[in-house]
Each structure stands twice: as structure tokens, then as C-alpha cells.
């Protein structure tokens, strides 16, 4: 009781005195983050001439044409679809393949296990940029240039190390008694994996999935070298091309940018917990 009382006593007056400077700093940092985004959102509603005269204020007349033009364009939706398709496929492949391997690394004792596992963890140290040239040559040889599969397979391969590490850690934490019970009840190893382990590992699976989706969604270098035809472009490629094409039409580029931010930010709002959890875990693991 006494400790609680002194704690409460020692604590209460402090934040009250301190919050004003704290808030001031938070507001400055917040402004640093938000002003560029607000500039883009508002800029999308302006005419180009107005952008240079009145960059910060609200638009004098809200021009919706920039946004509606982008929303009416076939290429924007195509890029959105391509990005979504590639991100989802990458995620399913990465998580599926990594879960199987993580299961074996977590629950089976066999010779060579640690060597294999170390090989995968070493993959965390391989910079993607180092491999891009041979990957390009390989994909060309396999006829996968211009094919979404080329991007999906490579992204999945580079996503494996972190995914396997996180999933293995989680699979290990599930008590052995559950496995014993399942096997006694006649479960095959795959049955145990599919019907018991994966459902139990939902939080970890959600986290690695979020990481894979965000990684794929933001990837630029690989799609840049794999896709030459416009029909295959993902959003990052589309934005870059759009900027080149409409170089002088700043307001229109801003509208495109803002619309391209929406899916990422929306996804972030929904999956924030898993993303942050995964990154901090991934960071400490890496």
C-alpha cells in the first residue's frame, strides 16, 4: 500500500509539468512527417499554376480532375491489380514453403539440421543487389522475364530466411505434449502440422505474412529489371513511369502518388500491430 501511494505521489505531478515541451517536440516531428503528405493530398486538388503560388494553403477551388483522371485510368487499376496479385502470391509461397521447413527445423531432430538452418539464416546477410545481375540472366534463360512468376519466385526465395527463423521460433514454443497427444490420436506429421500447429501459430503466420506483403508491395529493383511491358507494371514502376511521362504536370503526379499511398496506408492501419511486432522481432533476430 505504502509503495503504491508513494509511487502515485512521485509520479503524478511530473507529467503535468513536463507535457508541454513534450507535446511541442511531438508536434514538430509530426509536422515533419505530415507536411509532405498533406502537401501531396492538397496539391492533388490544385492547378499547377496554383501549386507554385500557393503551395501550403487550401486550394482556392478544389480541382478534382487530377484524382478522377487517375481513378478513371485503366493503367492505375492494372498496376494495383499487378501489385496485389504479386504480393499475395509471394506471401502464400513464402509462408507456405517456410512453414513446412520451419516445422521440420523446429520439431524434428536429424543430422544436418543445424547446418541447414544456419545456411538459411546466413541468407539474411545476402544483399539482394548483389544477386540481381545473375538473377536477371537466370530469369532470361528460363524465359521468365516479363512473367510475374519471375518476381514472385525470387521475392519468395529472399523472404525465406526471416520467415523460417520467426516461424521456427514460434513452432518451438508450442508444447511437445500437444504433439504427442495428436500422434496418439492417429495424426500424421502433416496432419499435426496442418490441423494443429498452423492454427496455433496464427499470430506468427499473420506477422510473417504482413512482412512479406509489405516487402513485395514496395519492391522496386526486381520488377524494374524483370518487367519491360506496361501490362506487367506494379505500382512503384507505374509511379516512376508516370512521373517521367507527366514531368511538368506536378498536380497530377501528386494525385497519383496519393492514390498509390492509400492501399499501403490502409493496410498499415489494419495490420500495424503485426508489422511492428514482426519488424522488431526480425530486427533483433537479424
Amino acid at each position, binding site marked *: 500500500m505504502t509503495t503504491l501511494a508513494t509511487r502515485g505521489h512521485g509520479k503524478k505531478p511530473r507529467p503535468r509539468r513536463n507535457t508541454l515541451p513534450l507535446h511541442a517536440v*511531438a508536434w514538430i516531428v509530426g509536422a515533419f*512527417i505530415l507536411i509532405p503528405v498533406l502537401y501531396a493530398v492538397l496539391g492533388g486538388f490544385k492547378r499547377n499554376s496554383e501549386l507554385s503560388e500557393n503551395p501550403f494553403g487550401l486550394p482556392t477551388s478544389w480541382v478534382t480532375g487530377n484524382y478522377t483522371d487517375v481513378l478513371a485510368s485503366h493503367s492505375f487499376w492494372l498496376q494495383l491489380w499487378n501489385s496485389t496479385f504479386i504480393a499475395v502470391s509471394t506471401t502464400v509461397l513464402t509462408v507456405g514453403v517456410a512453414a513446412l*521447413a520451419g516445422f521440420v527445423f523446429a520439431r524434428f531432430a536429424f543430422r544436418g539440421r543445424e547446418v541447414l538452418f544456419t545456411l538459411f539464416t546466413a541468407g539474411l546477410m545476402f544483399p539482394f543487389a548483389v544477386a540481381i545481375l545473375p538473377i536477371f540472366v537466370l530469369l532470361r534463360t528460363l524465359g521468365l522475364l516479363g512473367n510475374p512468376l519471375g518476381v514472385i519466385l525470387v521475392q519468395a526465395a529472399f523472404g525465406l530466411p526471416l520467415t523460417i527463423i520467426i516461424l521456427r*521460433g514460434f513452432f518451438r514454443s508450442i508444447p511437445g505434449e500437444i504433439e504427442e497427444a495428436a500422434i496418439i490420436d492417429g495424426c500424421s506429421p502433416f496432419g499435426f502440422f496442418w490441423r494443429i500447429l498452423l492454427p496455433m501459430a496464427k499470430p506468427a503466420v499473420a506477422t510473417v505474412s504482413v512482412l512479406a506483403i509489405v516487402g513485395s508491395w*514496395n519492391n522496386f529493383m526486381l520488377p524494374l529489371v524483370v518487367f519491360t511491358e506496361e501490362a506487367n507494371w506494379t505500382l512503384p514502376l507505374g509511379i516512376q513511369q508516370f512521373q517521367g511521362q507527366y514531368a511538368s504536370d*506536378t498536380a497530377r*503526379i501528386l494525385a497519383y502518388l496519393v492514390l498509390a*499511398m492509400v492501399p499501403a496506408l490502409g493496410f498499415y492501419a489494419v495490420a500495424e500491430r503485426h508489422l511492428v511486432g514482426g519488424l522488431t522481432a526480425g*530486427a533483433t533476430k*537479424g
Partner: protein
Amino acid sequence: MTTLTRGPEAVKLPAPAPAVKRRGRWLTITLFVLPALVLFLLLVVAPILVAFYASVFRWNGFGGLPTNYIGFDNFTRLFGTEIFTRDLWHLLVLVVFSVCVQLPFSLAVALLLNQRIRGRALYRLVFFAPYVLSEVITGVLFSLILSPGTGMANQLLGVFGINSDWLADPDTVMPSLFLVMTWKYFGFHMMIYLAGRQNIPNELVEAAQIDGANSWKTFRHITLPLLGPTIRISVFLSVIYTIQLFDLVWILTQGGPAHSSETMAVTMFEYGFKRSQVGYASAISVVMFVLSLVFALVYQRFVMRRDLEGATTSIGGRT
């Protein structure tokens, strides 16, 4: 043996034909690991080995594997050019700025958000948001903001009489690049620090305060040392990332003006994909790889060794 005491069901466990079980076990292991292993060996390990192999050839990237062996000529050529020393210098500048400016800034903001201030959940959400936006979106947005004519930066700073073509002036291009990196990445480091800070028991901080330590002393002698492992990892990630920095630079400047913001990855891309000097570009890749690896090994050996011994952080707090 211990299972015997558990009950009759457990006794039955080892009974079914061991030979069949064994084979089934290896079959499971093989079938489950093989897809990951094939994907990983074919698309991660092999390409990196090929990059090493190709780096000793003159090769335009066509016609199967390279044949025109030239020894270490690509490397001597690389180390002889000014571009290479410039890239290294850019790497060093960005690393020093990141470690000495961006990371302390992230740490300060993390500690700020660890205080009980109203709306801190919202602040966290906002500060981390740029990390989710792709580097292309970030790059294009800032190339517009920093552009000389209509850009917001000049209009804002024009009030103070400052005016520049930020990305086209060799003197301002690196600071501009660094600013964009900070905008995008400080939230990521902030989150790592916040997670690290939350692993420090509040009792320790409170005990120090009860003993009469002021905020600075508490930070200096309690928070900072206990955040050590987190800070070392954040520095590590920051350096490894900077060695491979490509997307942002490519979008903002393509390495220009006159190579003044070029990174190794940009140089590699330029030679590999624009000029079809795949052998030479592979040599640049190899240097990038060796830099990362040497840095990682040295850093882990001398800086992170203590941390790795006790590292148990994982999802859900378990390993």
C-alpha cells in the same frame, strides 16, 4: 523412459514398426524442407556464387556462362576509378550521418513517446507511417518537394532567403538525400528503440529516480546502457542497409549530378543494366557483398558478441 510414468497411452508410443516410421520420418523431413531449399539454393545462393564467378570475366551477360577470363582486371579497374572512392565516400557520409544524427533523433523520439503523453498511440502510428510507403513513393514525393520551380522546399525556405536546386546541386544533393532517408526510416528505428525500452523494467528507472537521479542521469546510467543491445542492432541494420542503398537514390537523382550522390548499388546497376558490362558490374556486387560481410562479421565479433549470447527476443517473447 520418463514417459512410462505418464500413463498407459504413452507406453504405446514407441511400439509401431520402427523401420517404417523411420523411413516415413525421413520422407517427411525431405518433402518439407526440399521446396524451401530448392528455392533458396537456386535463387539466392547460386546467383551470389555466379556473381563471384562472373566478376573475373569480361562479359556482356549474354550467351550462357562467361568465357572471357580476365582475372582480377575488373577489380583493379574498379579500385582504380574515382567513382569507386566516391561511392565509398558517399557510403561513409551516409553512415556517419545516420549513426550520429538519425539514430539519436530516433532514440530521443522513442523516449519521448515512452512518456505518458496524450495521443502517443497516434504519434507512434504517424511517425512509423513513412516506413510503410515504398521508396518510390517517398522518392517521387520528395523529388517534387525539392524541385527548384514548383517545389515546396524552396517556397518554404524562400522566406529565409534560401533557394536551391536541391537535387541538382552537388553541394546539397547528399544532405537532401539524407533528409529523405531520415523522413522514411527514423520511425523504423524509433519502433525498435520503443520495443527495447519497453523491455526495461520500469522499476529500475523508478528506483534510480527515488535515489535522486535526475532525468539526464537516469538516461545516462540506466536507460542508455540497458538499451545497448537495441542500439547496436539498429546501427548494424542502418549500415547494412546503406551499403545496398539503391531505390531512393535511383528515383531521386539516378546518382547525379555528375555521380555526386552515387552509391555502389547505383553504379552496379548502371554498368550491369545500362552498359551491359555484366562482368565489371559483378565485381562491384562482389565488393558490396564483401563489405557487408566483413562489416557484419567484425561487428558481430567485436560489438554484438555480448548481446548474441543472451539474445532471446522473438515473436510473443519466446524462442
